[in-house]
């Protein structure tokens, strides 16, 4: 997002719902229960979790460093390792050849080939370091609004899921219609907003 430097891209969410009376203890517990877990030495394909917004290796949150009252500022870390299909195909072919040679020409069953393919995939996954992406998240707990430092659909889906799981609160995207509803409140214009239909400038040409 660029809360420290540079330009920012952000998606906005409204967070509605009750929070417990021990709010900051609750936040601390939930963040720590959903920290990012490293997948460096594994074959896991992806991992998602909370890290410090300033340092994505930091999951200790010393002195509740995420808390800038009334804001909760976090990093959403997403590690993914991907093995290109072509690479799997190449090493699978090599493994099939080796197996056939060892069996002196006796064929391999479909199950054998699938097993070899999975072995190759896991082996390549183990040798492929995950790529890391971090997105800033800023929750204004007073106003009930969250900013996510990304406008990408995949990241938004990921964020919406982990935010809901972490805090038991649903983040609602602040699309124009919902934002307009919040701004107008229950006044006279609210039913007009609901009834509004698209207008056109095309008649200007008539």
């Amino acid at each position: 997002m660029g809360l420290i430097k540079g330009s920012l891209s952000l998606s906005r969410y409204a967070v509605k719902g009750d929070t417990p009376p021990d709010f900051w203890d609750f936040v601390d517990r939930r963040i720590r229960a959903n920290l990012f877990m490293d997948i460096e030495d594994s074959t896991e394909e992806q991992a998602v979790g909370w890290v410090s917004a300033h340092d994505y290796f930091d999951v200790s949150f010393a002195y509740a460093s995420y808390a800038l009252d009334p804001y909760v500022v976090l990093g959403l870390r997403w590690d993914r390792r991907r093995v290109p299909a072509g690479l799997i195909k190449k090493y699978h072919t090599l493994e099939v050849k080796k197996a056939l040679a060892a069996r002196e020409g006796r064929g391999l069953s479909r199950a054998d080939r699938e097993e070899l393919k999975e072995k190759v995939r896991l082996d390549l996954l183990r040798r492929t370091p995950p790529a890391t992406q971090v997105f800033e998240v800023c929750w204004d707990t007073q106003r009930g609004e969250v900013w996510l430092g990304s406008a990408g659909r995949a990241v938004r889906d990921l964020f919406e899921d982990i935010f809901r799981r972490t805090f038991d609160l649903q983040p609602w995207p602040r699309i124009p219609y919902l934002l307009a509803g919040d701004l107008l409140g229950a006044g006279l214009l609210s039913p007009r907003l609901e009834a509004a239909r698209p207008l056109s400038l095309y008649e200007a040409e008539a």
Partner: protein
Amino acid sequence: MDVLALMNEKVFLGQEFLTWLWYVSEEMGSVQLADGRLVDVLLGERLVLGPVQGQEGTRVTVKGRETSLAEARQALRRGKLVESLRLGLMIDGEEYWLTLEAAELGLKALKLPPTAPGGGAPEGLEGLVLERISLVDAALRGLEGLLMVFLTQRLADEKGGELWAALKAWAAGRQVEE
């Protein structure tokens, strides 16, 4: 609540708001918010127009200044509305630049006014983050103020009140001039 369905059904609100912002930048230059503050609105060098909700058609993307704006105006006259634009906002004497998208009112490439250097100390970093958060907040509240002004006028009646009449005249006026 199905947000995706709602977004598709009501995307026109964002398109109309962004088109109004373009109109404001050309015809008014600034808008007085409900709290009395003035916000200057400047058009940046990127504008994307698309068909009005429910209609089919292609998108028109223009970059750069005056010459290509003629193409955007032509698209406007053909009934297209703004889907995305680069915008400058002067709020309380501070200049912000951002790209706004009609569908979700998401912000891209938001350029904030400069802040004092934060230094390497953690407390300096915290101060810097808080300062930048307050600047983002100011930009968002400014935008919300503009949206509120737009909504109040747009919802005056089912035909968009004086606001839509002014937009039509603006579009037609350009046609006469060119």
